[in-house]
């Protein structure tokens, strides 16, 4: 297998409602910005992968609306439906499979849809949809199971929200720029027990793009290449009742495979920072367990011991994470982009010192049914 690298990145500022831009406008903006970042022109982009979802866009063949904006006229193009990390994975496969460079671009305007209705559409139409299950209520079931299994408290999760919102203030792209305390989280409106408003990510508008290059094409770009050292994805069972919701086994499998590819045996030692998909506060400790940074049930202790703080040994979500900005589909690609900026040393106020290896993570489906894990490094 060849070496591949990410040579260009771009993201919009995430916001509640981008009234002045259509989806195509957002895609056009980040496509152009990613090329500018890489110092490449459209002629240097060999093929395109767009990421969209027909339910979110309210259009069938949602990819139809963004192909031109992504510069794909007369180019090879495909579309992944799901989180941006999965689209990036297909982009990486295309780069390894013969293309010199691949542009991956994703967009979502949460403001133009009904997220409860859209995520209710993930559930079985006969037995589950009528119960009203959607992302928040299903995640509440998962959070409760996780608490009961390991004796965790709502405050354990609230502290994640406090940390990540504080980090978000260092990120000019973040949607929410909030000062919150544990009390604020605990007193915020209860949406689905035990999840309160400040345990949940906002619904954001935004777009993001990356350019992946095969080693033979890396020098065409002006940026410091960020090398893809490992990548893997895996899906768990569909029905919530068929899964042990407190144990993300598909994440463990994907992580293990990605670590093996990257030659990592002790992730806590080898990885300098993590950008993970914390759609809800409880997810951060749970995903850290799945990623093998600690034993099952000990994720919250990493936070308490300061390990996941900006000053700790493993800063988690220096960007503020998904709790600070959640444009669906875009959020995972943003994790990759944030990791790239960290590894280039271009993350400004949210920079983790001397970051050499990063883990970026995305999820698909209810309660993290599917996970995608990327190990990125500034060395091959």
């Amino acid at each position, binding site marked *: *297998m*060849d070496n591949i690298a990410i040579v260009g990145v771009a993201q919009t500022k995430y916001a509640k409602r981008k009234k002045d831009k259509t989806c*195509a406008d957002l895609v056009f903006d980040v496509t152009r910005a990613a090329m500018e970042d890489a110092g490449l022109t459209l002629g240097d982009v060999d093929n395109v992968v767009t990421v969209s*979802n*027909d*339910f979110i866009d*309210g*259009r*069938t*063949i949602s*990819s*139809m*609306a*963004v*192909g*031109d*904006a992504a510069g*794909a*006229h*007369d*180019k*090879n*193009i*495909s*579309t*992944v*439906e*799901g989180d941006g990390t*999965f689209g990036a*994975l*297909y982009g*990486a*496969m*295309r*780069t*390894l*499979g*013969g293309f010199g460079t691949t542009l991956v671009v994703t967009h979502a305007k949460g403001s133009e849809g009904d997220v409860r209705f*859209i*995520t209710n*559409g*993930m559930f*079985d*139409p006969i037995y589950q949809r009528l119960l009203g299950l959607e992302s928040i209520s299903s995640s509440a079931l998962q959070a409760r199971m996780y608490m009961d299994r390991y004796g965790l408290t709502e405050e354990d999760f609230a502290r994640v929200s406090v940390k990540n919102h504080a980090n978000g203030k260092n990120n000019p792209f973040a949607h929410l720029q909030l000062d919150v305390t544990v009390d604020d989280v605990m007193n915020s409106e209860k949406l689905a027990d035990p999840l309160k408003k400040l345990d949940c990510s906002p619904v954001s508008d935004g777009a993001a793009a990356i350019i992946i290059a095969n080693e033979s094409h890396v020098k065409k770009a002006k940026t410091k290449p960020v090398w893809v050292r490992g990548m*893997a*994805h*895996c*899906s*768990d*069972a*569909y029905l919530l009742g068929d899964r042990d919701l407190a144990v993300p*086994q*598909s994440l463990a*499998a*994907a992580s293990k495979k990605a670590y093996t590819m990257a030659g990592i045996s002790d992730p806590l030692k080898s990885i300098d920072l993590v950008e993970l998909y914390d759609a809800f506060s409880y997810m951060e400790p749970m995903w850290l367990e799945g990623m093998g940074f600690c034993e099952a049930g000990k994720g919250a202790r990493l936070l308490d011991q300061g390990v996941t703080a900006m000053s700790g040994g493993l800063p988690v979500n220096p960007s503020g994470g998904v709790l600070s900005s959640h444009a669906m589909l875009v959020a995972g690609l943003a994790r990759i982009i944030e990791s790239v900026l960290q590894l280039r040393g271009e993350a400004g106020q949210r920079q983790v010192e001397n970051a050499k290896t990063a883990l970026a993570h995305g999820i*698909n*489906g*209810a309660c993290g*049914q*599917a996970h995608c894990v990327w190990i990125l490094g500034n060395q091959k």
Partner: protein
Amino acid sequence: MAQKVAIVGTGQTDHKSHRPDVTGQEMIREAVDRALEDCGITIRDIDAIVIGNMDHFESINYVDNWSIEGSGGFMKPIMKVTTGGTTGASVAIAAYYHVASGMFDRVLAIGWEKNSESDTTGAIITCSDPIWDRFSYSGAIPSLATEATAYMKQYGATQEDAARVAVRDRNNALNNPHAHLQRPITLEDVMSSPMLAHPIKLLDVCPRTDGACAVVFAADGEAQRLAKQPAWVHATAVRHTYSWFGDSTDYDAGLVSLARASQEAYKKAGISNPAEELDVAELYLPYTYAGIKWIEDLNFCGRGEGAKFVRDGNTNMDGMIPVNPSGGVISTNCIGATALLRVAEASIQVMGKGGKRQLPKVNKALATGFGGCFWSDVMILGAERS
């Protein structure tokens, strides 16, 4: 360096207008089981899965997650690829890249659609821009009718010329046990069928079908072990070139996406005279006029010569370039699976597993996908490792 990839097994459901006997997952499972059996492996041997459909048809979001019981994807890498009518071909091409990248050795591509559970036209109308296009020029039939009318005016083709394509494909379908429509038809049947949008009549267009298709892609080394005669992927090419129907109506230029994609694929596969060098073509022809026009874009014949090319029998089973031995889209159309069925049928011909629809000796086969805003996907398969 990309690793070489071949198709080693295919499976398709029994296609019908309504499959009340199975759920969507069960229908997918039917195709998957048959594909695995075809190459003598079990789901444990599958490293990764790519699946696609049209979300709004069955109104299921995140189909990759929902379908795990049917696809066999529990604790496997799964990805969803969806591009409208071209979905089946996009899924096949994604499965190809899964293997070509070197990341996986045995990958399952799945396309499916349970059209009986949807309002297809209602859903498809939402593909066009909600402000500018949706209330005037949208859905499948209006844009195809416009294209057909322009072609007839330009080259003097007649409704009978187009009808011959339906007669050919529907009669080929009689040899395909999986085909949805299995009733022989005549030119007169097509001509006297109800007019939907001039000049398209009921028997000029594809049906709506419930069905699924699964195809196993394998890496060099593994492919030779799993199939006596693997169908090697010689080329793939894609052009999804327009976002607006209005931009794709330069009818003088033909179906630009297909012309450009096939040129690229021919170049990659070292084909200079497709009609002579290809042994079979499984084409995504959603309506009959495509069967006389788009073969020009594929360079099977010159501009304006499509009707005569078909009339002279060149695309018949015993012709220069047999088109759609399976009966094609006019006989079976489970949308998310339709283009994958073209890939499956082309590989079946290369593998020599076509039964009554098998052509004598197939060295090179072409499959196409069509959809979206007059978009095209192309795959060329061959008996030689290339």
